[in-house]
């Protein structure tokens, strides 16, 4: 394991403390909502990063796993009254299985071809759910009102519990990402990203490791989906399986720094507020303005700092050390 400097530990500690205190100090519910979205997209970005930034499989279909997670737990709750926390795990497993099912035939696809396959996959899932009677097709599923409790994964009086739960989920994703990155798996993912030949010649079972990357990524994305369902209390294919969501996940990871642990979180912290704030200030006229800003930022980053914003911090650190 890497050793941490005093500086790293203190920066992390302070940030964590600030995040824990944030909703107690800032009481505007809307701002808390934005932070919750930042955490959620941060987690989705970290999940994407595991297969995309590290293993080189650029997926534009993450919304499918997000949606499958949301739908699995919600369906089980509504139809069989299964507790959402169990639904959470079930959703993760279903998503992971779907990921394996799509990942295996795509094992030899790389780069652009893989990306196209994921776009197709994401859209197929969305269209299927839009027409599937079992899950109410386009009407979507409404999560039934239940008593407020942690066990029910439902809170009415305040957003605070949702805030802390999503933060915990994000931290879990970051810990998993950290372990992946600093383990044998992490090295093998990075080898696969460089070239299948290099990985194979070093004895790596490329198919197996690609599947692991996809499945872990899918599981974590599905967890975020269940959270979303329990938070917003209504899901439909157009809100949880949209290609635009998948694209946004890729954007925040690339902006923040693909292939780094904290990159997607930074990306989410920048892009989500922009997205939400332009929506408020400009209303309908503002639709798409956030995309314009995204596009501008991505262009800037691609030209000047391809490693993403996290790369900026890393370089500042290096320059100080000489």
């Amino acid at each position, binding site marked *: 394991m890497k050793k941490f400097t005093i500086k790293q530990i203190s920066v992390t500690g302070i940030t964590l403390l600030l995040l824990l205190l944030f909703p107690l100090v800032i009481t505007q519910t809307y701002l808390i909502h934005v932070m919750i979205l930042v955490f959620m997209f941060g987690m989705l970005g970290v999940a994407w990063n595991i297969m995309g930034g590290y293993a080189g499989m650029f997926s534009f279909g993450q919304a499918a796993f997000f949606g499958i997670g949301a739908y699995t737990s919600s369906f089980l709750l509504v139809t069989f009254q299964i507790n959402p926390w169990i639904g959470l795990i079930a959703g993760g497993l279903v998503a992971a299985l779907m990921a394996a099912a799509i990942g295996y035939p795509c094992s030899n696809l790389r780069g652009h071809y893989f990306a196209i396959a994921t776009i197709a996959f994401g859209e197929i899932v969305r269209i299927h759910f839009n027409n599937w009677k079992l899950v109410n097709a386009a009407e979507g599923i409404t999560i039934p009102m239940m008593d407020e409790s942690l066990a029910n994964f439902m809170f009415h009086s305040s957003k605070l519990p949702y805030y802390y739960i999503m933060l915990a989920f994000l931290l879990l994703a970051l810990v998993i990402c950290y372990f992946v990155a*600093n383990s044998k798996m992490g*090295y*093998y993912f*990075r080898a696969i990203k*460089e070239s299948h030949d290099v990985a*194979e*010649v*070093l*004895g790596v079972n490329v198919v197996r490791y690609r599947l692991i990357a996809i499945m872990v990524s899918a599981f974590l994305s599905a967890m975020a989906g269940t959270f979303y369902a329990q938070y917003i209390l209504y899901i439909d294919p157009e809100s949880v399986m949209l290609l635009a969501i998948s694209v946004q996940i890729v954007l925040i990871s690339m902006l923040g720094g693909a*292939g780094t642990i904290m990159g997607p979180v930074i990306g989410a912290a920048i892009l989500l507020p922009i997205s939400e704030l332009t929506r408020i200030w400009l209303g309908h006229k503002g639709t798409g303005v956030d995309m314009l800003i995204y596009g501008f930022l991505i262009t800037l980053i691609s030209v000047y700092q391809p490693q993403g914003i996290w790369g900026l911090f890393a370089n500042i650190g290096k320059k100080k050390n000489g």
Partner: protein
Amino acid sequence: MDKSTCLEVKGLSKWFGGLAANLDIDFSVEEGEIVSVIGPNGAGKSTLFNCITGFYKPNSGKVSFFGKDITKFRADKVCNLGIARTFQIVQVISDMTVLENVVTGALLRYTRIGPATEKAEEILTFTGLIDKKSFLGSELTIADKKRLEVSMALATQPRLLMLDESMAGLTIVELRNIMNLIKKIRDQGMTLIVVEHVMEAVMEISDRVIVLNSGKKIMEGLPKEVVSCQEVIQAYLGDKYRAVC
């Protein structure tokens, strides 16, 4: 000590559409030998390597490694069994440091990063790249990239090391270094098969030489036998090598 047969290739053929890249190739390599494979571009040397190491599946024939039939095995499985190779166009992991590259190779035999890193440093010292261990793969010169590729291959602890044109573009001094390295590798108990165009090196390091032309093996023998053979001179060596065969 009884030396066993490290690699045996029998009747190996590989077709691409109507073209026979390898046709009915037979040869064997004893443990501890250094065998060179020479021949013009397009003769099928890299194809032969790819068939032996599992990157291509041969259309017919058999490849045995220390008696075990590995003909249909996939590349990563072949590596697991103890055959390592380099590529004609050098491939290293550009975003990783030299050390991390070799650690990736070492992770085949060590599950934890700590011991794998120790092994990697040992190997980098052996191959002479230890001073550059923090350089990124993308920052190396071609000669150093080749050396790194060899280091990565060694990290998988192979019994047979197959080098594809590791000496292209080196000056005499650099060649001497690589040749010494190859001899050191053999002294550690490994067997080597080497594809090369640099005849000075082939002559100096090889126990035996195999010559391919147009997909077929046209000759096999001691280095001096091969360079004096008329057919080899005609196909590959040119008039500077006088015919005595």
